[in-house]
């Protein structure tokens, strides 16, 4: 069919990993050196849960490669003024000039010191959506490791656009940075806003499709009928941000209506802190000598340390304890004699009694009968007592889960939701057991490739935790990052590669403008050099207009650029990288990773150069090596590569050594060849050595993995550890201690956040926080009668591929895409017809688009899909698609204790006078 007869045709195996639910295998058809088609890679059908198929986004990669709007050669800014209304005047320059310009700035930083007078890194780096750029940035992680202190505070969405509280609490409770249902075994899932048929990638889509055909039931609890809601058995249109009340009521039905006897008593008794005795002051009663938490031993009829051999712990009840101590914040110890100790479960039962379905109904706008029925169905389907055999081992089968979606599991109310759904899992023994709720990876603990290795005994019979210290001696009084993550967020820790990135990112932006009146820390400075890779915070953050104004003040900015966009519009230097189909990188695949990426195989996969880069774009590994060379960090950079920081495995192992020499060949192909060999030897345990050429042909190397690795409970059992649930004594103490530190410095601006540190979370009218914020700004609630929410789209990974024409074309087949989704009846009342141009206004600004009328959305709710409202990026800027990000405020009031906020804002909507 081709007009030009093809001379050569080849099919190149590679991957797409633009969103967190990858890697997706694919094959690129290359005709005479031109990429023409994307196809599945069926060679991976056995190892890949989605059978070697890629999601819709991957099919846009050909257009991504040949998009005429690409930056194809290095550019420098000629207009010294920066701002949205200042044409940057980018002009082409040589690679030599571009690299030298950036390297000179970097060298100057090193000369002055890596940290400035405020104690903050002079170099800041922003990496895009959900950590996925690491699948494209080659050896850049080695550069960053070689550099020293780098500030990732400015992020690009981590903290504000991720499932933030789930990351932090999930990892704390069960090493679940992302938490999923064990869909292959699931029988009943309550999805509270979890839009997994859109965000879970091909693995989740096929698993849930299989489960539907098998007859599992999924109940979607969400204010609008999302794609996932559409594919569910039932839709419960809950009032926005009232999810904690709904979940509390489910616990109430289980605990107060069914009672302990219907729950998984062995699990609660042996794997959770349910039996731990709690003093009237809310702290664990501890053994006076060993300081171990006490339990009531039914065998001996006495309080004993939790790990007493042969003890039979009471799960429920209240017991008199002759002598005990409690350990409060700052190691303050109090003694008790003849004190009443209630088990943690008993505390939960008493606490949750007030949260009946009837109570929740009024808050959530969901009938009490519906809540009760769902709770009953959940319990019934949990099949307490059932078992399953996996690889010769018998495990509990508990095929029920509650999954949470973005804005349910970040921002205010998210702690409550994360806690409640994890408690719902432990009540029936479904936490980290087959069919139940599983964590899939760790990022705040080590090792990031095996979460079981992050399980080790810590305090009080629980897993070890690496909280940021809050003691007088160790608390970080002078923040080392602009998002203050170690100072303000103990739970985000300091143990994992991502701890910093998971800090309160918005604070870094906010505090460049106004700071609280009682701020008593050093004034935050601007980073002297900001490097941005695959990130467009001026679109993907909140209050984006203001954010772009702040970004314009940064003194020097180097952006790895695909096209001009809203962030690199302020850049000094643009560096064009070879994109997805033009560059090479090896990454790990399989094992258990984000979302529903738990596989039966693990190994490595190559993303390879299928076609030559367009123009003068260069492989990012080459760019990185040149920057390292020119800025004087070549040696530590190569050392970091040799350690395996960028490339899957250490280049030197027990029986092999492919270490690179800083003075030798550092061509990307040479680097990746070494990585390929080290990786294949590592995964084959010394049996197979495959170089780059082998991987170019075969694409990946995989070894089988037992499904036992999916579940953490056997590992907990092995270590004799308990999940730190349902009672949160540690969090209570930590919050008090953090409060002490802040108050010692006369800082009260974080007090509202401190209120989140509760041992058992209380309902605190979460939606009212947004109302109060509105009123504080002088606006009236009646002028902003709607909630505006956002929802993800499978066709777009955040805003990253907004410039790909085919994605726009196919996305338009879905209702609501590119418009403002609103309830048809509400719209009729406002005189708005389908397709009318409307203004959606919050108290900080307005965004404009066409009304998309649907029945499947609450009358009080509007929804805008994706992240758009581009004004610089070619193609995207002509789409006229609105965005929540433009009008959602960035404020301390709406920041929770973990440092996250939610994608929700009160708005007004009106029809524009002039038709578009």
């Amino acid at each position, binding site marked *: *069919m*081709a*007009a*030009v007869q*093809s001379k050569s045709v080849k099919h190149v195996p590679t991957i797409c990993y633009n969103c967190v639910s990858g890697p997706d295998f694919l094959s690129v058809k290359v*005709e*005479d050196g*031109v*990429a*023409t*088609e*994307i*196809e*599945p890679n*069926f060679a991976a059908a056995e190892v890949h849960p989605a*059978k070697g*198929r*890629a*999601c*819709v986004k991957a*099919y846009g990669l*050909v*257009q991504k*490669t*040949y*998009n*005429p*709007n690409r930056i194809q050669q290095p550019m420098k800014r000629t207009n010294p003024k920066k701002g949205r209304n200042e044409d940057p005047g980018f002009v082409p320059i040589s690679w030599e000039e571009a690299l030298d310009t950036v390297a000179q700035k970097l060298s100057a930083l090193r000369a002055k010191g890596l940290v400035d007078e405020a104690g903050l890194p002079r170099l800041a780096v922003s990496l895009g959506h959900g950590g996925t750029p690491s699948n494209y940035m080659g050896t850049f992680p080695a550069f960053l490791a070689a550099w020293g202190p780098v500030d990732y505070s400015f992020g690009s969405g981590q903290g504000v656009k991720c499932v933030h509280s789930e990351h932090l609490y999930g990892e704390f409770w069960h090493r679940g940075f992302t938490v999923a249902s064990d869909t292959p075994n699931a029988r009943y899932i309550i999805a509270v806003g979890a839009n997994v*048929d*859109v965000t879970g990638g091909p693995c989740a*889509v*096929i698993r849930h*499709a*299989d489960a*539907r*055909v098998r007859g599992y039931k999924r109940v979607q609890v969400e204010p609008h*009928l999302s*794609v*996932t809601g*559409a*594919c569910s058995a039932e839709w419960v*249109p809950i009032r926005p941000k009232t999810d904690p009340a709904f979940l509390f009521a489910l616990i109430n039905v289980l605990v107060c209506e069914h009672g302990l006897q219907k729950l998984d008593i062995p699990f609660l008794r042996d794997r959770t802190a349910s039996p731990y005795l709690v003093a009237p002051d809310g702290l664990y009663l501890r053994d006076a000598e060993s300081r171990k938490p006490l339990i009531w031993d039914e065998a001996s009829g006495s309080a004993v340390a939790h790990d007493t051999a042969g003890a039979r712990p009471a799960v429920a009840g209240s017991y008199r304890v002759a002598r005990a101590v409690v350990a409060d914040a700052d190691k303050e110890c109090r003694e008790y004699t003849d004190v009443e100790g209630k088990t943690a479960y008993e505390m939960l039962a008493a606490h949750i009694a007030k949260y009946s379905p009837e109570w929740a109904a009024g808050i959530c706008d969901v009938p009490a009968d519906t809540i009760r029925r769902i709770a009953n169905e959940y319990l019934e389907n949990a099949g307490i007592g059932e078992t399953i055999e996996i690889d010769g081992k018998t495990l509990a089968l508990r095929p029920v889960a509650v999954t949470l979606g973005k804005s349910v599991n970040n921002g205010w109310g998210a702690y409550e939701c994360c806690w409640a759904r994890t408690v719902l899992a432990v009540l029936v023994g479904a936490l980290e057991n087959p069919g139940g709720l599983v964590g899939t990876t760790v990022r705040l603990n080590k090792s990031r490739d095996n979460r079981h290795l992050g399980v080790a005994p810590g305090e009080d019979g629980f897993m070890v935790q690496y909280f940021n210290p809050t003691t007088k001696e160790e608390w970080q009084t002078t923040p080392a990052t602009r998002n203050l993550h170690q100072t303000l967020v103990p739970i985000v820790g300091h143990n994992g590669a991502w701890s910093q990135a998971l800090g309160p990112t918005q604070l870094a932006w906010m505090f460049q403008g106004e700071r609280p009146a009682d701020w008593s820390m050093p004034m935050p400075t601007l980073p002297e050099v900001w490097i941005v890779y695959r990130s467009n915070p001026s679109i993907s953050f909140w209050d984006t207009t203001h954010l772009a104004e702040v970004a314009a003040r940064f003194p020097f900015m180097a952006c790895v650029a695909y096209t001009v966009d809203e962030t690199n519009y302020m850049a000094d230097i643009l560096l064009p990288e070879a994109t997805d189909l033009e560059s090479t990188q090896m990454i790990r695949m399989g094992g258990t990773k984000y979302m529903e990426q738990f596989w039966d195989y693990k190994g490595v996969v190559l993303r390879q150069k299928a076609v030559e880069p367009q123009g003068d774009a260069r492989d990012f590994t080459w760019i990185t090596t040149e920057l390292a060379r020119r800025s004087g960090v070549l040696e530590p950079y190569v050392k970091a590569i040799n350690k395996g920081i960028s490339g899957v495995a250490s280049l030197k192992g027990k029986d092999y050594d492919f270490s690179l020499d800083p003075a030798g060949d550092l061509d990307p192909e040479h680097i990746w060849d070494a990585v390929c060999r080290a990786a294949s030897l590592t995964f084959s345990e010394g049996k197979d050595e495959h170089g780059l050429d082998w991987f170019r042909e075969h694409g990946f190397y995989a070894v089988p993995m037992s499904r036992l690795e999916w579940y953490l409970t056997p590992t907990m059992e092995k270590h004799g550890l308990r999940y730190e649930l349902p009672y949160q004594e540690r969090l209570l103490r930590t919050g008090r201690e953090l409060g002490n530190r802040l108050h010692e410095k006369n800082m009260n601006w974080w007090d509202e956040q401190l209120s989140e540190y509760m041992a058992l979370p209380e309902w605190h009218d979460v939606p009212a926080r947004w109302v109060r914020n509105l009123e504080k700004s002088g606006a009236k609630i009646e002028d902003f009668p709607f909630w505006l929410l956002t929802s993800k789209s*499978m*066709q777009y990974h955040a805003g990253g591929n907004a410039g790909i*024409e*085919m*994605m726009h*074309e*196919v*996305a338009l*087949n*879905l*209702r609501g895409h590119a418009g403002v989704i609103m309830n*048809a*009846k509400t719209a009729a009342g406002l005189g708005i017809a389908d397709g009318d141009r409307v203004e959606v206004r919050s108290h900080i600004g307005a965004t404009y688009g066409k009304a998309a009328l*649907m*029945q*499947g959305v*609450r*009358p009080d709710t509007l929804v805008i899909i994706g992240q758009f409202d581009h004004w610089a990026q070619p193609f995207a800027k002509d789409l006229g698609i609105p965005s929540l990000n433009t009008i959602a405020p960035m404020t301390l009031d709406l920041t929770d204790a973990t440092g996250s906020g939610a994608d929700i804002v009160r708005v007004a909507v009106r029809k524009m006078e002039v038709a578009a």
Partner: protein
Amino acid sequence: MKRYVMTIDLRRCVGCQTCTAACKSANATPSGIQWRRVLDLETGEFPDVRRTFLPVACMHCGDPPCESVCPTKATTKRADGLVAIDYELCIGCANCVMACPYDARSIVHEQHFAYGESQMTSEAKRFDPGRIGVSMKCTFCKDRIDEAAATGRTPGVDPEVTPACVNSCISGAMGFGDINDPQSNVSQLLAQTQHFRMHEELGTEPGVYYIWNQS
């Protein structure tokens, strides 16, 4: 005699448009032209609302109305059930477009490129002037089916000889095979499920079966 049909399990489809995009990729259809797409249907009133994702394309009818109206014999029904168009014969009269009750056909009178006037390298490589001004539609990727006939492989089982949309479907909603073979994957699946064909009352004998429940 073979009759190739497609099965689409509506229980599985999530409306992701991967098949839409894969079809565009495999067939190099111009910007704005989709030989297949997934529709998004909403029914009911809040809060009793249902949303259904419905993949649609040429139904490769057993009695194709497009074929009988075609004045040029450009549209033919093949012995294996595929409804094909010979672009060399078609005069672009659009009679078949009107005859098709499935909105499956389109005619492009001028080529549209993804990014306006300028043609991308990948578009230039695949631009086929023979498809301008003639009727086009889903072919069931007939080159692949022809290859199956030549090589003895089985469409719907061997990916190389299976339509691109079926290959691409990430929810496993689509199947393809010979309905006249009781042992084929599609025959087996249809025997176990409840299904319908669209607008069957029009007597078109469509070759796409929509599954909506188990038997």
